[in-house]
């Protein structure tokens, strides 16, 4: 008998649904304030610059630089046990906000130029990954 190991699923909300739909459509979307244009991530109700709740969504270029990173050597959720060790990277996106993603490539370093990859994890889920942008 095979054991089916599933990863945790994101608890989508009305607020965040466009982000997740964007990933499924192959686009990394950031919230943009509908009043003043300030970009923000993760999705939240109000713009902290002008307090407007008007929102539009803007596609990020996917380009950025490594802010920091870690390599997971212990799986705190069984769904990641078979992927150890794996690297998580925090990325300063060219548009300003910072994103967290999985990493493909040699050990990252702070400041390294990276680009986003949207990776179909299974039928339902698309994961945000990053890899070196051009020469590593």
């Amino acid at each position, binding site marked *: 008998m095979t054991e089916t190991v599933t990863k*945790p699923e994101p608890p*989508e909300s009305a607020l965040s649904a466009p982000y997740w739909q964007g990933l499924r459509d192959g686009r990394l979307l950031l919230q943009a304030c509908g009043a003043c244009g300030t970009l923000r*991530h993760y999705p939240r109700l109000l713009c902290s610059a002008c307090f407007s709740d008007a929102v539009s969504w803007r596609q990020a270029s996917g380009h950025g630089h490594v802010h920091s990173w*870690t390599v997971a050597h212990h799986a*705190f959720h069984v769904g*990641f046990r078979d992927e150890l060790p794996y690297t*998580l990277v925090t990325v300063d996106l060219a548009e300003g906000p910072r994103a*967290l993603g999985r990493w493909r490539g040699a050990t990252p370093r702070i400041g390294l130029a990276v680009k986003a990859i949207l990776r179909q994890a299974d039928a339902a889920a698309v994961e*945000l990954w990053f890899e070196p942008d051009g020469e590593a």
Partner: protein
Amino acid sequence: MALRDQACVSGIGETAYMRGSSKTAFELQIEASLAAINDAGIHPSDIDGVIPIGIVSGIAEDFVDNFGIRDLRYSALIPHGGASPVMALQAAATVLATGVCRHVLITFGRNVSAGSNKAGARIHNMPQFHYVTEFEHPLGNSAPAQIYAPMARRHMELYGTTVEHFGAVAVACREHALLNGNAIMSKPITLEDHRNSRMIADPFRLLDCSLESDGGAAVVVSAADVAADCRHRRVFISGVAVGHPDSPASITQRPDMTSLGIGKAAPRAFTMAGVTPADIQVAEIYDCFTYAVIRQIEDMGFCEKGEGGPFVADGRLRLGGALPTNTHGGLLSQAHVWGLNHIVELVRQLRGDGGRAQVAGAELGLVTGYGDLGDGALAIMRRG
């Protein structure tokens, strides 16, 4: 400053700390609370304020029921993880200084041995981790060790902080735990043991991580004049303050990932107490991870940002050093009860009851709280 020396910790209590306790979180919490109330020399029904830490066991109504409290005048829940106990000192001092209450109980109990309660699972039921739960947990960023690791990695890369610096914190805590009959860890460790311990989430090794543990702790905080009639010499809360990083619920969105809330709290607390870091004789610093101690030492002004590694490296945190730290063994080697054990230990030190870990002549000390993703709190206390 309105709060300075208006409240005292009059009672302290702890259960035995262990893994695999047969008692529920609430039983552990009640046991610790009764010990603290007894230590203060009052009756359970004398409590008129209750601040349960977290929503992991009893709520205020449970204490009304079990302690026969007839006139509860204040209760609060402070949802900031390990910063909550020191934040609760601030809340208690406020309601005691303004005459709302006479005796406030700050109380905590936990049993994390149950499988469903492991570190990788339980935080995802907590609202303060909702960004992590939705956007990071599905990518495998599940537990505090992983979530905090990039902060430590960045500190290492920007400032040259080393594995040996982290190890110095772990070794100091362990040395102190060996002097404490109520510490889970009882085996000595060296810097080499630390360096060789298994990697959990780079750069955190096993010996950089605090202990999963079961137990309870509690303190009674009383108005300064009321505390004069309690059993022990008074330990005054001279300065206390709270601070939150920007943005508090998402490390990922923080302009500077290495910034903590205690950087905002520390100047306020020191100003309120009218002292400087150089005056501090003993420190109980929240040590969820070794790195967190180094970073808080910087933010409190004991050294410049980036100098925390060298600061801890030369034995300064050990008994006999310039800043004896976590004299009970800390979360790293005594037990993890969200840092309420740090407050208990500071009071013990300032009463002169520190036993084999007593810092000679300690009259002024501090205790920090560090919660969730960088919320901070600092209390400066002095013996009366």
